[in-house]
């Protein structure tokens, strides 16, 4: 990637990112939030994390190459979820997830 291409991507992405990160906070900051809005904000964490997990794990046509390649991340995800429920630790969940994923990928070859 050339410097020209790099600057284009950097400036464009950063402007969009800062707008998304900073503007909503200042629009809502210091106001008495209506009940409905406060309730909606409370639903953001479960919805957002479910969406992120689904985005990483689910793809239309994920089983096209056979069951096993798509099953590896799913099995690792189940293992991660069990450890997360048991320990509530980000670190142990990440370690477990990567270890199970690596082990399954190793044995699948």
């Amino acid at each position: 990637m050339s410097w020209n291409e790099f600057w284009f991507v950097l400036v464009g992405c950063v402007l969009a990112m800062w707008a998304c990160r900073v503007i909503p906070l200042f629009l809502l900051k210091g106001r008495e939030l209506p009940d409905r809005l406060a309730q909606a904000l409370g639903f953001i964490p479960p919805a957002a994390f479910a969406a992120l997990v689904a985005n990483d794990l689910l793809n239309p046509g994920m089983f096209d190459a056979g069951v096993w390649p798509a099953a590896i991340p799913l099995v690792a995800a189940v293992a991660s979820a069990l450890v997360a429920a048991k320990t509530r630790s980000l670190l142990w969940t990440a370690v477990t997830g990567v270890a199970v994923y690596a082990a399954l990928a190793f044995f699948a070859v």
Partner: protein
Amino acid sequence: MFSREHILSAFSAAVPIMLGYVAIGLPCGILGNTIGLNPLQVALLSILLYSGAGQFMIPNMFLAGSGVAAITASVSLVNTRQMLYAASFAPQCADSPRWLSALFAASVTDESYGVNTARFAEGNWSVDRALMVNLFSQSSWTISNIVGCAVGAAVDIPVSIAAFAMTAIFICLLVTQKFTSANIVAMVVAMAGVYLCKALGLTGPAILIGAIAGVVCALAFSAIFPRRATPATTAAAQTSGGDDR
């Protein structure tokens, strides 16, 4: 604000994120190296853009032959989910100075959002500590990216395995949510929404559309069944006024 005690508590809250960012930052830097980015460029991206998903997408799309406009648009679409995070911190930032709120909002990520939201919900948390969680995490991310880019292809870490650290962190943040009926509606609809968006070819905005669909359906659900859904509102209500300085 920014007392020794606050710094230490912020650091201990940030440690799991920092270690996770080493695991995904190194392969991200290595990937940057493969498209000819130098450590300075990777540092600029990490400090200014500070987006894990975004910084993985840029080299992946470039390698796949996408143009800079398509890359910028796709990364920006994926990052629109940040609007939801920033907005949700408005009550906690109500009494904070403008510069502190702006700096905090500009450095929120998926992982630090999850950690700070949990801490605010427990009480005894404040915007200065939340900002330091963000900055500790960002330092780890930036350093890991620079190191990854500098050592480059000398190390051969399979990117898909290392990147699963990020997925596992999202799973932990999801599993530790309160499983009220309304929250479960939000989760199921969000996951279905993401899958549906991808099936329709809307890969870029899939996360945002899925998450918004989840929030909207959970709101509708709690309007139809007000009694069963009430526990979900407490997390948002509790957190206002938790800023003890």
